[in-house]
């Protein structure tokens, strides 16, 4: 039962990442990110129930608050401040992005085989999903123009890393998760400020404007 729920959560996790690549409206991306945060929280909760671990449950609560609550909230505020940036303006069109995502997921599964072979539990078997989300996050950051897409890309990468950590080890120590979360929160705050400044300076949030800073 728990195994099936875990697989469902992982599926949702991966699907939301691919959805982020598919949709263009930034508000939809933030909604998808919230869904992904919920899926990650679900994974953590299921693991905590499975292992009867209070510490993992505490981590799950923290992850839920941060990834499904705080970070989407921050992103919405950025979006509210930059009204004209409604769409992602991809450098690679959506269908090509979908194909690339399929390739990246395949690669993730191929590359994670030794990792799965280490601990053949059902949780570890789902670990490649996390790696796939890391790659998709990277791909998103590299191929979308608006600065806010880069923030979402970084968040996807982090979600993926957190998922691998949960699935492969069966629960991350609280201290480690706290450190990583604080780091991430800071990064998002900095990026938020940066986006606002970018908008103030260039009247746009297209990162290609930064090219003029070279030389």
């Amino acid at each position, binding site marked *: 039962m728990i195994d099936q729920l875990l697989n469902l959560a992982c599926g949702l996790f991966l699907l939301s990442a691919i959805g982020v690549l598919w949709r263009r409206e930034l508000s939809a991306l933030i909604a998808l990110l919230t869904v992904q945060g919920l899926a990650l929280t679900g994974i953590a909760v299921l693991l905590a129930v499975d292992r009867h671990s209070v510490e993992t449950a505490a981590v799950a609560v923290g992850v839920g608050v941060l990834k499904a609550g705080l970070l989407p909230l921050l992103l919405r505020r950025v979006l509210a401040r930059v009204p004209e940036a409604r769409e992602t303006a991809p450098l690679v069109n959506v269908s090509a992005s979908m194909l690339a995502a399929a390739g990246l997921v395949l*690669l993730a599964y191929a590359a994670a085989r030794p990792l799965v072979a280490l601990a053949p539990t059902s949780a570890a078997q789902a670990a490649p999903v996390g790696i796939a989300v890391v790659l998709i996050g990277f791909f998103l950051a590299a191929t979308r123009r608006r600065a806010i897409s880069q923030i979402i890309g970084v968040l996807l990468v982090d979600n993926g890393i957190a998922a691998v950590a949960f699935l492969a080890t069966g629960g991350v120590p609280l201290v480690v998760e706290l450190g990583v979360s604080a780091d991430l929160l800071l990064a998002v705050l900095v990026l938020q400020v940066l986006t606002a400044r970018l908008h103030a300076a260039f009247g746009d949030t297209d990162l290609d404007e930064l090219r*003029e800073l070279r030389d």
Partner: protein
Amino acid sequence: MNEVAAALAVAFALAGVGAAAGWAVPARGRSTVAGAATAGVGAAGAAAGLAAVSGTGWQGHLPDLLPLAGVTLSVDALAGWFLLLVGGVAVVVGVYTVGYAGRGGHGPASRTALAVLPVFVAAMLLVPAAGSVSTFLLGWELMAVTSLLLVLAEHRHSPAARTAGLWYAAMTQAGFVAVLVGLAWLAAAAGGESFAAIRAAGPELSPVVSGGVFLLCLAGFASKAGAVPLHPWLPRAHAEAPSHVSALMSAAMVKLGVYGIVRVGFDLLGGGQRWWWLLLGAFGVVSALYGILQAAVATDLKRLLAFSTSENVGLILLGLAAAGLWTDAGEHAAAGVALAAALLHAANHAGFKTLLFCGAGSVLRATGTRDLDELGGLSRRMPATTLLFTVGALGAAALPPGNGFVSEWLLLQALLHRAPEAGMVVTVAAPVAVAVVALTAGVGVATYVKALGTGFLARPRSSAAEQAVESPRGMLAGMGLAALACAGLAVAPAVAAPALDRIAGGLRTGIAPLGGSGVDVRLSGIASTISPLWIGVGVVGLAVGFAGAARAVGRARRRAAAWDCGDGPLTARMEYTATSFAEPLQRVFDNVLAPEQDVDVTHPSESAYLVRSVQYRRRLPDRIEARLYQPMVTAVDRVGRAARGLATGSVHRYLAYMLAALIAVLVAGVIR
């Protein structure tokens, strides 16, 4: 407690204290403190070396000093010889520094330049004392970094020092990478990184591994030793560094390249194959010839001394090559003599080159120039410095009773040995090497006659040389110590015989010990004996006797003006300059040196047959550098410019690079 351990502990502790004190003390007393600390570190290192060459070995492991590997020290007779050499040079340089770098005037009195000095000496002591690959590499890198800081001491005043620093940094790091890869490979193949473990596994290594390791280490060590064609950093760094640093680098640091070759080639790899030593011999021959030719035509005093370092390193490498070849051919007696010649020449070169570089520093301090064409007439103004420089030049010219003579004689004895079983190549190569040593010695005499004659004798050729003042007592005392060491090595080299025997016995190549007794050096296995003391007494006695006889028998002395063709009084413009003295040599070796010269003759407007003025310009670029290194530098530059196209400033492109790299790693993992 073991003497070696105690002395090394004192040396390293003093280096730390000296560096801290050199940093903290205000400018007035800084050179005194740093100089004294350097001398102290050197004295302690020399004491450790003396104990080690007298037969007290020591091995220690300090696991907590460094993470992962710890520090392993191991001092045997071979390490002791180089500890003694480095320590001795450091004592001289320390005493010299007190006078040279102080008073704020000339010389680098900056905080960094003085505080780093004792650390540099300590790093040079750590290299021979190391007993494992990691400790050796630590010492090697520390030595490279501290010496680089010292080379750059005068970077504010001279752009040439900055160029020299760049060349030195690039070449020393490239050499470090070669040594690092070689030794890491060796440690991996031997299954342990301590020298003891490698020594045990050495003979079982496959020829591919040991050959590859030897080639890599040879490249790194030979470039540190300044062997041609890996030398371009050397004339630059030695000429542009402050003179006491030049002395330390040329006399001590360069020798550690030699130490590395002996340690890896003879000790860790245990002898090896014939082609190794033929290659090393080729390095030696090319270095000796090219070094002395460039020295002979150099007009910059310190550049001359630097190229002479290349030449002497060439002779040392030739000795090592002969030792390896004779061991390979089973001629153990000749091999022992060759090894002894190489090690003794290393010590001799350390003695006279310290003295000469310190002398050059005194000249530079007194006149502000290193250009021999602008000097002259210093013997009146600086008699003590001139005398001390003469002692050094005599050693460097390898004439009796100088100290370089004994080791070059030993080298010739080793090379002249006939070995029927050695094979065709060696039978041909040995006489060629003899000819090269002979030619080198000949050109060497001309070089040092030029340095001493045009630099110190005759009349001053510039107002700076005219107003030179004698160096302070501290500098003279330092140079005096070096001169004493040179004299000791010149008349009684046999005192080193037991130490050399112990070193040869410690290497497992089966090199038979060298015989020796109090006054003379007797070569066991080769019917040859030399008594440097009696040669010295004979030469001095003959000279004094001839002078006395000429005065007693010849006509009475009278004072008269020198003959000047009846054309007014003689001026300094009529005497030999360094350029004109070397001109015949330059003409003979025109094809090798390829000088760039042009002569501009201006005629008066009335007649093309009359001459108003003649201008002569000559440049002697380093040909090997121009042919070998310039294309490489240009290519690297071009690649660097092309690589700028990768960085367009687009954030997306940078992110795509990262993604591509990540995917490439994952794909590589999947495919494997």
